[in-house]
């Protein structure tokens, strides 16, 4: 029997110490009619060997050639050291660092992580992660609504519009979460250039409590974030910036958007050392200006001193959290995505600003090469980052399916997300894609389109 160390002698001695005849007796407070065995035919336990064989076979079933899909999850190189370190038992099997003195490793990692994210985003504070990008955006919206005192005082409606090209799956997650607090999340239209059309908002009075913009947006297009930030600042609307942290190695930090910058920055950390792994676990991050620190959800680590006056780290501002503040907490989040934060911290240490910049630039360049090689028109005119919408001139879903049968992920068909883009695919080529792979995609696409 796996994992249980008790010998018969142990069990007997323990039962004696308790003073019962058998283990069954320990369940005597459970009413008989609630006792039940697992139903169906009993499953024999598999040995580790058998279990791994099953997993290996199933994983092999799904093995694919090169991946040209991004859409919030990117196939970047991860240095071997990242997961060799993050998988050390002391990181991987540690509990939440509530006992600070026995958790200095985890705590210092988070403190370093917070610093790195503040550097990337230009914000003053960062939490120790939320679940992922979509749920993180929901937390950011809730936070913005809580934090906009002016709006609350003035009784503005709880409306938080989103730029039209915010990741549609982030929008869905945000809506299902924030609707329970009566927050309305309307979508703004996107223009022919692929960027948000703010004129749709111009008439609004009172203005929205907060506004969400994504940079680069779902289409890979770069928004005019200066104009958006200024629009929001002028109206007392809090600006929530949803960003790809890797892009910030090249792009202006949200703190520097327009004249005053964004108020809250969120996003998904997957590009920072997290394998695609079907999209999870990854981690969401949430940063803010100093003024909003007490509205942040989730854990935050602070540096302090020990009884000898030496520096050390501990969870702080816990009065925001559910285990202290209960129904009045800033969020219900408890378990977060700590191990991924550890990996990301190590990843960023190994890459540094220069390395991240080169990864971002190489991904941009590869995507340019890809678009060129595919020879199909871009759907949107504005500059893009490392993703791009391509018009195939016919329904895209069957084409993508055909490419998949050919063994490659040839972009994301957009029809299921935007009916008007049913002929389009969103493609991405990270720094890992070789010219040979790009050529393979181009050839396969030509084949698929000629059928």
């Amino acid at each position: 029997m796996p994992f249980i160390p008790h010998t018969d002698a142990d069990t007997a001695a323990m039962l004696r110490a308790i003073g019962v005849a058998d283990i069954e007796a320990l369940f005597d407070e459970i009413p008989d009619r609630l006792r039940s065995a697992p139903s169906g035919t009993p499953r024999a336990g598999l040995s580790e060997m058998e279990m791994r064989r099953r997993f290996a076979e199933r994983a092999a079933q799904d093995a694919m050639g090169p991946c040209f899909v991004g859409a919030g999850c990117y196939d970047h190189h991860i240095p071997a050291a990242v997961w060799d370190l993050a998988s050390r038992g002391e990181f991987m099997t540690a509990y939440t660092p509530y006992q600070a003195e026995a958790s200095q490793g985890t705590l210092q990692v988070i403190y370093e992580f917070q610093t790195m994210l503040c550097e990337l985003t230009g914000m003053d504070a960062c939490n120790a992660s939320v679940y992922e990008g979509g749920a993180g955006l929901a937390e950011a919206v809730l936070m913005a609504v809580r934090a906009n005192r002016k709006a609350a005082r003035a009784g503005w409606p709880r409306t938080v519009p989103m730029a039209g090209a915010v990741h549609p799956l982030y929008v869905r997650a945000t809506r299902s979460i924030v609707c329970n607090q009566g927050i309305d999340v309307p979508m703004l239209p996107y223009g022919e250039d692929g960027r948000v059309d703010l004129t749709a908002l111009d008439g609004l009075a009172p203005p929205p409590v907060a506004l969400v913009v994504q940079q680069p947006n779902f289409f890979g297009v770069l928004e005019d974030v200066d104009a958006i930030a200024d629009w929001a600042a002028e109206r007392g609307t809090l600006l929530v910036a949803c960003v790809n942290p890797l892009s910030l190695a090249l792009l202006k930090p949200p703190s520097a958007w327009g004249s005053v910058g964004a108020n809250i920055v969120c996003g998904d950390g997957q590009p920072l050392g997290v394998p695609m792994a079907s999209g999870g676990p990854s981690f969401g991050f949430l940063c803010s200006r100093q003024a909003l620190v007490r509205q942040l959800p989730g854990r935050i680590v602070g540096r302090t001193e020990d009884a000898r006056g030496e520096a050390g780290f501990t969870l702080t501002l816990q009065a925001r959290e559910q285990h202290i503040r209960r129904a009045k907490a800033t969020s219900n989040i408890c378990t977060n995505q700590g191990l991924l934060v550890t990996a990301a911290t190590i990843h960023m240490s190994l890459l540094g600003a220069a390395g991240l910049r080169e990864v971002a630039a190489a991904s941009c360049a590869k995507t340019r090469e890809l678009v060129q090689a595919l020879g199909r028109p871009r759907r949107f005119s504005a500059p893009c980052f490392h993703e791009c919408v391509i018009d195939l001139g016919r329904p895209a879903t069957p084409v993508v399916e055909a490419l998949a049968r050919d063994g490659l992920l040839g972009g994301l068909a957009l029809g299921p997300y935007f009916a008007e883009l049913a002929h389009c695919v969103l493609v991405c080529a990270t720094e890992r894609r070789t010219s040979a792979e790009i050529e393979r995609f181009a050839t396969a696409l030509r084949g698929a389109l000629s059928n």
Partner: protein
Amino acid sequence: MGAQTIFDLSQPGRGAGAQRPSPAAADDLPPELRRDAPPRLPQVSELQALRHYTNLSRANFSIDSQFYPLGSCTMKYNPRGAHRAASEPGFLARHPLAPASVSQGFLACLHDLQELLKDAAGMPAMSLTPMAGAQGEFAGVAMIRAWHDAQGDASRREILVPAGAHGTNPATAAMCGCTVREVAVRDHGDVDLDALKAAVGANTAGLMMTNPSTCGVFERRVTDIADIVHDAGGLLYYDGANLNAILGKAKPGDMGFDVLHFNLHKTFATPHGGGGPGAGPVGATARLAPFLPGPIVERTDDDYQWVEPAQSIGRLSAFMGNAGILLRALAYALMLGTEGERRVGEFATLNANYLAARLKDAGFDLAWPKRRASHEFIITLAALARRHGVTAMDFAKRLLDFGVHAPTTYFPLMVPECLLIEPTETECKEELDAFVAAMECILAEAKSDPETVRTAPHAMPVKRLDDVKAARELDLRWRPQ
């Protein structure tokens, strides 16, 4: 050294050269959107980073290196085989939006896990997407709300929780736009049924509870509770954090619960990762099934497909959940088999009752001495605190010096100076005996030399940390001196 950060090791121009792709221009990005100055990330060599994080890891306690009798957290052995199985290259490289047609291996795994969990829950429907217990709770309360709305009963916005409920329960209710009402717990750790009867009514959306409860005892009248809530028109949410105690022995579905979550990072042994990730699959009875969050895997004659339940509360995250954790949980469940699952509940309970008996003999006060411990139990140090000025927190810190992680302190809130102790089934008798010996030793110290206990820990990388200073003089990020 303790607090030398990675930034302190940084030098301009240093780096890990092997991690740099060939430089590429990105000249076509509009200049006004580019950043002026690079972020001040560390500039260190690969060896410096490796050594720094290796040594930082060594400043942690972990299951792989210490015993963690941490009540409510179920810190049991995290099988390395499950970790490796989930790390198969084919799984790690799978893009979340890969078509289902080329994802049948992955979908088959998720489907297997859904089936397994349904059986353990005693419920006919399961969604794997919630990313932790709290998100499972959120899903559950949102489903309860949506159900009432669908019945045209939009006034039901009150969630009841027993006193001593875990903080995520009230926080979840609030996040779902509900109000929270506490129900008292009686002497022996059971819910006060009279108080419950008085609390339910036309506004009752539902009740959230654990069973075994956060008091470490099995709620004996759980079906009466279910009847009271159901009769008042409410629904019952089962917080599965304590499921380890009854795995293979009893099913929440049989107790009258309508919806529940699992903490796979507890009951199904996936690692806690220093705070996460976890997974909180949510199960439902037939009437709540249409409201489950998506996506869910459905098996057709030919293959596996993603589906969204008809009246789904929606997505809770962009993709499908913490896939890697789900795979680990499946690996664990497959290794257990039916018989192994049953033994989990049995030996978790045996270990807890043994430890309770031994500590009682050693002179510690059990919070509910007349009850069976479930998988965990509570001792209260209130008398000791009064007599020797040594608190539960002092005890907890001193235990660290003995190489044992502290039990959960001051939870549940209604037991003064308490330690909530959960040994789990994967610890051997010798480990439990060593814990008792440490506790006895600290008890003796508390009497003879309370200062040593009060100023503990002494053998950790740092002495006791000043939390007040941390909160007052916020230092949340490194800055150059």
